[in-house]
């Protein structure tokens, strides 16, 4: 039954790939994780370190996480994605921790689906929700000072800032 085997989509069960560590991120690695023979679309979002914030020169970013809870919150996002877009196949969320130099990636989100609309919408939902709910913190380090950032998506952030 070789052809039946190759066609059997259930052999490529939907998977969530979640990783938080200090390693440099790779778009190739993350996209390879989610590519599936029964999918025609992979959408990725890559968050990279900018060299400036309100006119101040950014030297690098430094990330820390409540890692076990962050993974649990990312799993919740994956579960929600699968409810909203049932055709989604694989989801990968890799977040780098520690120092991230300018132009390097702090986060890569990748989603595969048979057709493109689902993966495009889902990757947008993933990164928006990650910014609102996943306990990770970013310190922006300038030449003379630093600042803890606050995502505008975080509902308990100081609205006055």
């Amino acid at each position, binding site marked *: 039954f070789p052809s039946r085997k190759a066609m059997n989509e259930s052999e490529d069960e939907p998977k969530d790939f979640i990783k938080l560590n200090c390693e440099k991120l790779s778009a190739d690695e993350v996209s390879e994780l989610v590519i599936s023979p029964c999918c025609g679309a992979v959408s990725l979002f890559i968050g990279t370190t900018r060299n400036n914030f309100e006119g101040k020169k950014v030297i690098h970013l430094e990330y820390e996480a409540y890692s*076990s809870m962050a993974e649990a919150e990312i799993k919740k996002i994956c579960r929600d994605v699968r409810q909203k877009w049932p055709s989604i196949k694989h989801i990968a969320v890799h977040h780098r921790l520690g120092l991230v130099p300018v132009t390097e990636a702090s986060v890569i989100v990748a989603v595969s689906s048979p057709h493109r609309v689902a993966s495009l919408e889902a990757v947008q939902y993933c990164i928006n929700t990650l910014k609102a709910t996943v306990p990770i*913190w970013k310190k922006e380090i300038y030449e003379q000072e630093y600042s803890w950032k606050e995502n505008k998506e*975080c509902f308990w952030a100081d609205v006055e800032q």
Partner: protein
Amino acid sequence: MSCEVVALYFARSAELAGVRSEIISVPQQLTSLQLWEEIVKRHPRLAAIQDQVVFAVRQEYVLLGDQLLVLQSGDEVAIIPPISGG
């Protein structure tokens, strides 16, 4: 009755507390605001960010307020300043 929970501090809350994790003894039942007051007693500098933090109790978000917490020894209680992942 009191119990020993693991308090975790991150980012600005770790800077203000001067510690990243510690075991603290707290009542088994108290509101989340009372828990915050217990913690501020230990680390008065945290008072500065009271309006900008939430808890994570056993890794679930809890706002500071009247919500009653039922804690057990070993539970994780994290002080969560505004997040900025991504």
